């Protein structure tokens, strides 16, 4: 059952990710990005990472994919949806992506024996990871969490500052 679900999720992830990078229409890309992120959340569920499942659904599917849709709404044009989606660097990009994939897949396949050595048994079903994650981010990772909070605040202020109109012409602030 887990195997079937994994291959189901994996197939949808790959197809929708290819759709994100290949489709002309940015709206379709944004919707497929939401689908892909939701399926990754499903994989987190299969890996019994329940807190990450919730975080992925709330942050990625609920916030980021929706944010992309809003930006497409604000600065997309229908005429631009029919222009060609890839630039002249596409062959080089394909080469770079295939090289990266070959390297990563080679290393992963090479490490098959080592992976089999450390294969864990089935983790204790039903045990929630929320307690251990909470202990970790308030214990050894407390400084990191404070820094992440500061980065979030900085991003908030930066986004407000960057999108603010300074005058009637709509130019961004120069100084």
């Amino acid at each position, binding site marked *: 059952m887990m195997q079937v679900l994994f291959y189901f999720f994996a197939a949808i992830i*790959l197809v929708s990710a290819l759709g994100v990078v290949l489709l002309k229409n940015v709206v379709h890309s944004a919707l497929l990005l939401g689908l892909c992120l939701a399926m990754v959340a499903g994989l987190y569920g299969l890996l019994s990472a329940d807190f990450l499942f919730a975080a992925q659904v709330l942050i990625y599917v609920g916030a980021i994919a929706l944010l992309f849709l809003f930006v497409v709404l604000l600065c997309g044009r229908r005429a*631009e949806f029919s222009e060609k989606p890839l630039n002249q660097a*596409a062959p080089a990009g*394909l080469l770079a992506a295939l090289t990266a994939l070959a390297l990563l897949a080679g290393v992963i396949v090479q490490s098959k024996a080592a*992976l089999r050595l450390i294969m864990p048994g089935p983790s204790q079903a039903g045990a929630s990871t929320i307690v251990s994650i909470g202990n970790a981010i308030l214990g050894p990772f407390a400084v990191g969490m404070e820094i992440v909070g500061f980065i979030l605040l900085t991003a908030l202020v930066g986004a407000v500052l960057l999108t603010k109109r300074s005058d009637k012409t709509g130019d961004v602030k120069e100084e």
Partner: protein
Amino acid sequence: MEPLHYLLLSAALFAIGVFGAVSRRNIISVLMAIELMFNGANLNLVMADKLLHPAGSLGQVMALFSITIAACEAVVGLALVLAIYRKYDTVFVEKFNLLKG
């Protein structure tokens, strides 16, 4: 062998993201491809956590930090896209040549 397939899937997701980030013309799609790369890395982190550290969830904490940083990156990136769109009236990356020598 299923852990292997998880790792291969995350590598494939990362490679698709690399392709999209390099070769899309629309800058919104470039940011979307970067999100795909983030997701490949996060999936790898969670799988490695399950393999190497089955009792706890430290790798999941790392993935959580990564998700947060990705959210910051998306917000600032999209704000920049909006600002540039107001100035140049286009979303195609080849028109953004302010720093071209």
